[in-house]
């Protein structure tokens, strides 16, 4: 969604062309991200030839302030949906930054890893908006990601396994 997409595109802005092909996954209810992504990739293709990317939508795992019990159901549904997608894409690296959408994808990737099908490196970057507390996705993925990046020093203190590189968006 909105802010997350803007942040993730900034994170991608300095990556080399070795990070290819890029597969973008976002919520089906998200109207604006597709345009932002296409615009980013369009600009990128002006510098790098042979830029490859795909776009996929998955059901949104959770609306803002959705109740706990219904969130579990919708997240399970999103996991069931994203499992075949993740299997098809077999990513080497998953980069995510906090929308509920990333949890089912990461869980799918973890399952594929456990089953010996494909082991992906999961890198989570918490949003710049999170200065003192983690988002719900962050709290979950702190334990399941390979690298968990925070952008403010308070969070580094509270979550010692995290990586602090300063502000990166």
């Amino acid at each position: 969604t909105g802010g997350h997409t803007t942040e993730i595109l900034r994170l991608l802005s300095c990556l080399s062309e070795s990070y290819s092909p890029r597969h973008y996954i976002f919520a089906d209810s998200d109207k604006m991200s597709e345009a932002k992504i296409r615009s980013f990739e369009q600009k990128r293709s002006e510098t790098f030839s042979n830029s490859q990317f795909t776009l996929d939508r998955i059901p949104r795992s959770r609306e803002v302030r959705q109740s706990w019990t219904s969130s579990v159901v919708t997240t399970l549904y999103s996991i069931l949906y994203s499992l075949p997608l993740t299997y098809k894409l077999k990513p080497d690296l998953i980069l995510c930054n906090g929308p509920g959408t990333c949890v089912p994808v990461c869980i799918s990737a973890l399952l594929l890893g456990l089953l010996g099908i494909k082991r992906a490196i999961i890198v989570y970057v918490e949003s710049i908006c999170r200065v003192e507390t983690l988002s719900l996705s962050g709290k979950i993925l702190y334990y399941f990601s390979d690298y968990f990046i925070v952008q403010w020093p308070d969070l580094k203190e509270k979550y010692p396994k995290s990586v602090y590189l300063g502000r990166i968006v």
Partner: protein
Amino acid sequence: FRFKDSLAEDLRKADLVISHAGAGSCLETLEEGKPLIVVTNEKLMNNHQLELAQQLHRDGHVLCCNCSTLVETLRSMDLSTLKPFPPGQPEKFALFLDKVVGFQ
């Protein structure tokens, strides 16, 4: 301003911005180098929205007030006390990721 596609043009022309504490609004304004007064409303806001506004205020990048103190703030403000907001560094992220993945 009912829902313009982008406020970027207005932002560039502005001398002072008064905004709610939404992260996008705050960061875009600071990146344009415009002085910013953030108006917070603790009753309406998500706690985490307040976190960023408070941190930016602590670091001297924005002035903060609430609806009732806005007028007083505008009267007594000294915008020269605001510190410039350095841009984020995605290149640091790229370096880190290259190491992680093994592209050195």
